[in-house]
């Protein structure tokens, strides 16, 4: 149990996917203009990460390791994640229309999010068991949500700030992201 807690804290704070590992920067910068959509994006990512880590673990354990085909990890994970997201999207559209509308365009976009592939590859690298993998995927998603919501909060305030003309837009966003990453580096002694 303690083991799972360590994995959770490690993925959320110490090895935050966005701010420490620098994975998934694209949605982190692209969808962090307002808090509302960034929460949706975070939830959708958490959902897909959890699911993808479970499937990736099963695939790796029973097919790739069984046939000694570990070198196909990247390709097969991409294949699985892409199909999975498609399937989930159809399922949600059928079952819960409001949820589908809330996740909107974000769900298919997540397919190409490198943080998802990162989670799948990391859990193989760290040799987690099935339960640990799922917890790892979920906490990586929580970490992503935390980072993107903090970023959106700052950027909403930034709209009102008197930013020098040449720093407006992307430059100031990257500077803020850098400061946030520095702050998260402070967690590195936690575990």
């Amino acid at each position, binding site marked *: 149990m303690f083991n799972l807690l360590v994995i959770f804290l490690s993925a959320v704070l110490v090895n935050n996917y966005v701010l420490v590992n620098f994975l998934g920067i694209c949605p982190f910068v692209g969808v962090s203009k307002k808090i509302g959509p960034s929460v949706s994006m975070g939830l959708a990512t958490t959902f897909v990460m959890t699911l993808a880590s479970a499937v990736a673990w099963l695939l790796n354990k029973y097919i790739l390791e069984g046939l000694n*085909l570990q070198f196909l990890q990247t390709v097969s994970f991409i294949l699985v994640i892409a199909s999975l997201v498609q399937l989930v999207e159809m399922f949600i559209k059928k079952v819960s229309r409001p949820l589908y509308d809330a996740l909107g365009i974000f769900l298919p976009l997540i397919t190409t999010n490198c943080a998802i592939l990162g989670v799948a590859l990391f859990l193989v690298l760290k040799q987690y068991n099935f339960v640990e993998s799922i917890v790892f995927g979920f906490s990586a998603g929580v970490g992503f949500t935390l980072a993107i919501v903090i970023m959106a909060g700052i950027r909403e305030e930034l709209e009102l700030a008197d930013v020098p003309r040449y720093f407006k837009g992307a430059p100031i966003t990257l500077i803020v992201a850098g400061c946030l990453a520095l702050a998260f580096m402070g967690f590195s002694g936690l575990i």
Partner: protein
Amino acid sequence: MNYTSLVYAIISMGGLGLFFSIMLMLANKKLHVEEDPRIALIGDLLPGANCGSCGYAGCANFAEKLVGGESQVTNCPVCGAEAAAKIAEILGVEVSFEERKVAVVFCQGGKGVVKEKARYTGIKSCIAATLVSGGERACAYGCIGYGDCVAVCPFDAIHMNTAGLPEVDRKKCTGCGNCVSACPRNIIQLHPISHHVFVLCRNLDSGRNARAVCNIACIACKICEKAVNGVGFIVENNLAVVDHDKYTKELILPTDKCPTKCIVIVGEADEV
């Protein structure tokens, strides 16, 4: 070379791909949601760039809102007139495109027309001159003449003429409004292309003072207002303005009657 792993790799990857494609195919049939067929039709006609300019999350979402009657085709700035017309046909509504707007410069006080009050040797920019003394020209409302509007035009549609006044190329102008916000004197406005008659002066001083600084200034003599019986021209705050809602071509143009010639016909009659 290890042929076994090659075969395994091909079989397992091909198998996975086949498995997922069959599963998705089945799921697509099984989980199919009945939608208004017009949504798919309109989705095909929209640009598909998911730029978000319409205010919705992507083209598919916009198509749904169109069918639901919550939005209008004209909210999509990317899709052309042809696609918009087709979409409108599917929806059974009519599109009315807004008329193209072009910039109009409301000043004729070029060299030799407006009095000069000083010699300005600072930075050749209207906004810099405004900070110091308002440049060389005596009129406090008119063009300063250093071409800030020319510098910001991304379409090469506004140029300084020999008199030191900006001239708009009405064919090239897209109505983006960059020059409107660049002008520190606010003498550039956007007007529909069908508007041709303008009082090209923004001087709010009394007639005497306006005349003292510029030969082509509106002196608020109200001759134009009287010539059309108050329909089409209104004189307010010492300045005549054209009321484009009421002004029609049938009215006699009081251009000749204006003693200072500040009522001007801009552009060609049949331009679009």
